[in-house]
């Protein structure tokens, strides 16, 4: 009988997590394991995740791969799973404290934001000092990815963050406003329309992910300004990379969910076989699966890869 493992994602509608699940399933089949997948119902839903952890324990799973919706609140449930002898690996999002999980395979979301912020600043040159920035965030609940990407971007762009654990409290006059998008095209479009009504001169748009970037682009196109506005985003999904190639998005930070998932599944297999737990990357307290800036307009001082390379690495 094969080893049984669980994958618990934040939601299962975001393509990012869909791909993560596909990667994990592929690896599990390869290793002859059974994998059961669970997800929160909405962004920020940690209660369903607690229920999923409980179900996995009841079901006798050997290990759990978890992308936590609320990095602090989930800690108790993780602890009781670990007490029951289950290996818990945090994927994508580190828990708080990070050692609440047995191991962490993650991207640094702040870093992802930082890269696009730096890129946007350099790409604009002097105009950056008088830029008009629109920030398209995820939800008013401000889950940690949402905050880290947004604050990373602002840091990279050279904006004072005020409280780094919260978006929306910045006082920099260049910021036109924050709007929430739910991370999809519809939300991106509506949010962009509202911000444009507020100030039609916006020329930099940060977006939480590529679908919301595509929505924002439609709004800009509708008023004929799609050419003179810089849109940056995070994720690196295949449609997103194609959008970078087409000039819809200026630059995006690519993550590697398939790799995270595959590594996670392997670690569980190993743990089931001989009880060894995975080790973190040297010098960090987690295993960094890396993030890369993708753009066809590289700037000095910010490392990047082009869309051809990005398309090879993209995840969906």
């Amino acid at each position, binding site marked *: 009988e094969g080893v049984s493992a669980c994958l618990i994602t934040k939601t*299962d*509608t*975001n*393509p990012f997590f*869909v791909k993560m699940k596909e990667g994990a399933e592929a690896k599990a089949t390869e290793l002859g394991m059974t994998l059961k997948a669970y997800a929160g119902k*909405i962004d920020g839903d940690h209660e369903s995740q607690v229920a999923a952890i409980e179900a996995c324990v009841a079901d006798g799973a050997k290990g759990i791969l978890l992308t936590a919706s609320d990095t602090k609140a989930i800690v108790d449930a993780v602890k009781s799973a670990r007490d029951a002898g289950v290996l818990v690996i945090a994927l994508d999002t580190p828990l708080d404290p990070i050692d609440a999980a047995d191991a962490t395979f993650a991207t640094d979301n702040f870093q992802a934001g930082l890269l696009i912020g730096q890129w946007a600043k350099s790409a604009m040159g002097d105009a950056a000092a008088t830029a008009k920035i629109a920030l398209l*965030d995820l939800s*008013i609940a401000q889950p940690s990815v949402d905050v880290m990407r947004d604050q990373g971007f602002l840091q990279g762009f050279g904006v004072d963050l005020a409280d780094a654990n919260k978006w*929306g409290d910045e006082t920099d006059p260049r910021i036109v*406003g*924050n*709007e*929430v998008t*739910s*991370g*999809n*095209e*519809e*939300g991106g*479009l*509506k949010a962009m*329309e*509202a*911000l*444009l*009504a*507020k100030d039609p001169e916006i020329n930099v748009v940060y977006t939480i992910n590529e*679908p919301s970037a*595509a*929505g924002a*682009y*439609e709004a800009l*196109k*509708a*008023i004929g300004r799609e050419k003179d506005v810089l849109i940056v985003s995070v994720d690196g999904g295949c*449609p997103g990379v*194609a*959008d970078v190639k*087409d000039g*819809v998005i200026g630059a995006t930070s690519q993550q590697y969910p398939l790799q995270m998932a595959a590594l996670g599944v392997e670690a569980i297999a190993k743990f089931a076989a001989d009880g060894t737990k995975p080790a973190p990357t040297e010098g960090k307290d987690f295993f960094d699966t890396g993030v890369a800036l993708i753009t066809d307009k590289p700037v000095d001082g910010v490392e990047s890869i082009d869309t051809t390379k990005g398309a090879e690495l993209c995840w*969906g």
Partner: protein
Amino acid sequence: MASDAKGATSFEEGLKGASEKVAEFHEDKSALKRLQSWLHQTPSAVPMIVLVVAIVIFGLLSENFFKATTLSTILQQIAIVGILGCAQSVVVLTAGIDLSVGAIAVFSSVLMGQMSFRYGIPAPAAIGIGLVLGTAMGAINGYLVAKIKLPPFIVTLGTWQILLASNFIYSANETIRSSDIQEQAPALQFWGGSIQPGGVKILYAVFLMIALVAIMSYVLRQTAWGRHVYAVGDDAESAELAGVQTKKILIQVYALAGFFCAIAGWVMIGRFGSVSPTASTGQLGNIQSITAVVIGGISLFGGRGSIVGMFFGALIVGVFEMGLRLVGTDPQWTFFLIGVLIIFAVAVDQWIRKAAA
């Protein structure tokens, strides 16, 4: 005839020469009274007053609000909710509720997209299939409500989950990109087209919404079918006793709602450019449309209210959202204030009605 019968009704002789005069009373003709009586007879005008007041206030608060482009943006932002609101209105008038409207809309748009992109069906045919399937989804709701007699809330809660899940499973969470649609199946984006009188862009979708509201308003007031919809919602048992085919009406109503949702799905493609299974309408379309319906003065207990009221309800929400965004900054505060304003709008509405009664 029995002996006591005669005496029993003899007092009715007093009826001879009974007055045939119809009561007539002095009618008050002051301007205020006339306004009151007009409001009393035209309840959909009440949300309109709230709307006008809101527009004026926001116009004073933000200089950007009173621009033609802002106003046209508001209209285009409510186009989808307005169409879903038409669907929701007919259902609510029958004392039902449809939680699945958003899911039907999103799933229909995905079906239209996948029909042309996955199977290469020409866009107009794909749209037709999408509309038919959307109608079918609505009809299933109707069947469960009318024939199996399940509560509409539960039926549509169930189909909401079912359709949304089907939507994600069927689409494999894949978005069809705007540029691809533009190249290969531009008919899908039809409603995103616009006319631009004096540089102000007005989407076809906006005209469609207004046309649907007008048509449904006519159908509900001026046709037998419309009166039957009201009768079913008012008191289904009485309607049945009075000879209304309540089951048939219910199935038709839910099917029609499904059809409108499918249209909304088509409009979504035009409006957003792309076809996305994760569109928030799938999750929030029901609450948004119910909000428009209730602010517009349609009773959730059925049988009372007008679809024109729903239209103003949707507009009120649209104006508040846009106005608050222009005035304020933080989305959390915007969210807070929208809550306050919704309650306030309905309170004012109630107050005017009371004053008019």
